[in-house]
Every structure is written in C-alpha cells, then in structure tokens.
C-alpha cells in the first residue's frame, strides 16, 4: 500500500533537461506526427518559434525523472511492478521549443485508497532556464493491491 503520508510532499527539482532538436524529431515520429512544426526548423520559425516545437505529450520525457524520484523514495511504498497509468494531463503556458532547458518539481497532490488499490496523483511543474512556467504534467498512477 502507498503511504498516505506522502500527500503534499514536494521533491527537489530535477537536473536540467536540455531539449534537443533530434530528440523532438524522434519523439514526433514515434507518435506518428507529420506536422512540420515538429520536424522542420524553417516551418517552426515561420510560425514564430525559435526552433521546432515538441508534440504535446513530449513533456512526459521530462516528467519521467520526477516519477523516478517517487519510485525511488523508500518512504512512499510505490511498487513499480504493480503500477498502472490511470490518467495523464498536460497544461501548457507555451509549447516546448528545441533548445529549452527544463527543470521539473514534483508534488504529490493526492493519495487515495480505492477497493484495495492506491491512486497517487502527482503534479510535475516544469519551468525553463529563467524559471518561467512551461507546462505542468499531472499523472494519476494506480498501484494495484496485493491479491
């Protein structure tokens, strides 16, 4: 069972993640996107961006480092092998652009017990190199109880 005491816990900011142009292209192709905004710097510049922009779910790559913090916290009691992804949300202030240096801070917003399972809602606030908000990634993980 997940420790209900971790509700409200804030973890230290992650190491900065430098968004690479080729990584964005690789991710865009992996999610079957054909938009030139994710692939062609000239098309992105014509649309007013400094470089190609990332698809909306790309923030999961940065969020990943924060969820690793949660899974590594011995006090939290989250068993990785029993975790199922329940819900996901991304709320943006602006698109992620290649060249961004992003830092994420994880807050555990809620821990609920439901029919033998635990539901953990985590919120990862992602800011750029000058500390401006870019996106908040909210995940609800379902940790299945022991049978």
């Amino acid at each position, binding site marked *: 069972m997940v420790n209900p005491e971790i509700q409200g816990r804030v973890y230290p900011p992650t190491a900065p993640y430098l968004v690479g142009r080729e*990584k964005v292209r*690789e*991710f*865009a*192709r*992996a*999610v*079957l*996107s*054909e*938009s030139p*905004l994710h692939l062609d710097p000239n*098309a992105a510049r*014509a*649309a007013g961006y400094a470089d190609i*922009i990332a*698809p*909306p*779910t790309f923030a*999961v*790559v940065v969020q*990943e480092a924060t969820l690793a913090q949660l899974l590594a916290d011995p006090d939290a009691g989250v068993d990785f*092998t029993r975790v*199922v*992804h*329940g*819900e*996901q*949300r*991304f*709320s*943006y202030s*602006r*698109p992620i652009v290649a060249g961004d240096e992003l830092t994420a801070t994880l807050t555990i917003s809620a821990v609920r017990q439901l029919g033998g399972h635990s539901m953990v809602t985590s919120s990862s606030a992602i800011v750029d190199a000058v500390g401006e908000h870019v996106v908040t990634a909210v995940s609800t993980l379902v940790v299945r109880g022991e049978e």
Partner: protein
Amino acid sequence: MSTAPVFEQLAVGDVVAERDLLLTRDRLVRYAGASGDFNPIHYRDDFAQSVGLPGVLAHGMLTMGAAGSVATDWLGAAGWVQDYQSRFTRPVAVDPEAGATVTVTATVGAVDAEARTARIDLRVVFEGATVLGKAQLVAAFA
C-alpha cells in the same frame, strides 16, 4: 494535406480529422526509445504474460500521443496546444504480425470565442471499443 483551420468557422460537433493508426511492435519499440519508457510489457510477451496480461500492450502514452498527432496535424500553425488530457480505460494488445489498428476521430467539443480556444475531443477505438476516456485537447488560436 487539408487546408488550415479557421477559428471562426469551427462549430461544436464538426469532425475535423479522422485517421486509422497502425500500431505495430516495431512502433512500440520506437516509442520506448523516444520516450524512455522501457517497461518490458511493451515489447516482451513472456514478461507481459508473467504479470497476467494477454501479451504485449501499446504504451498508453503512445496511444495518447498518436491520437494527439491527429489533432495537431490538423491544427498545424493555426494554433497551439494549451491542454491535453486523457484517461487510460482499456489496454491495446498488439499482435506480433498484424499489429493493432486504432481509429481516431477528432471532433470539436467546445468553442470559447472570447479566449479563442477550441476543445477537440478525441475518440479512439480499438476492436469496437474506446480505449481512451475523456481524451480532450484544448487548442489556442492566434
């Protein structure tokens, strides 16, 4: 390539894009590498079966991401994505040879004329049932 969307012409209920997406095992491996999600239930049948699954499943985030691409390919440079959310309600089992074909339909769910935003609702169907719940993307127009 369809024409660029015009905010003033959007009406609730309009189907703006529809596409069949073929998710194959190699596409799952590509997504694993691109996203950093190397959970073996997404590429090893023996492991998936050992934890009680029928076999390899697509990453929920791949299904969500690919469905989002149907909307963002339509949106193009006419706007940008302010918000995108989904629930993962049903797994997508990916056959080693045939893969899994999911059908994505993007419909205008709401329009806010003052904020110049449109909510695009994404219906994602696999084998006759929806696999994502409340998959909604909010696009902000210039």
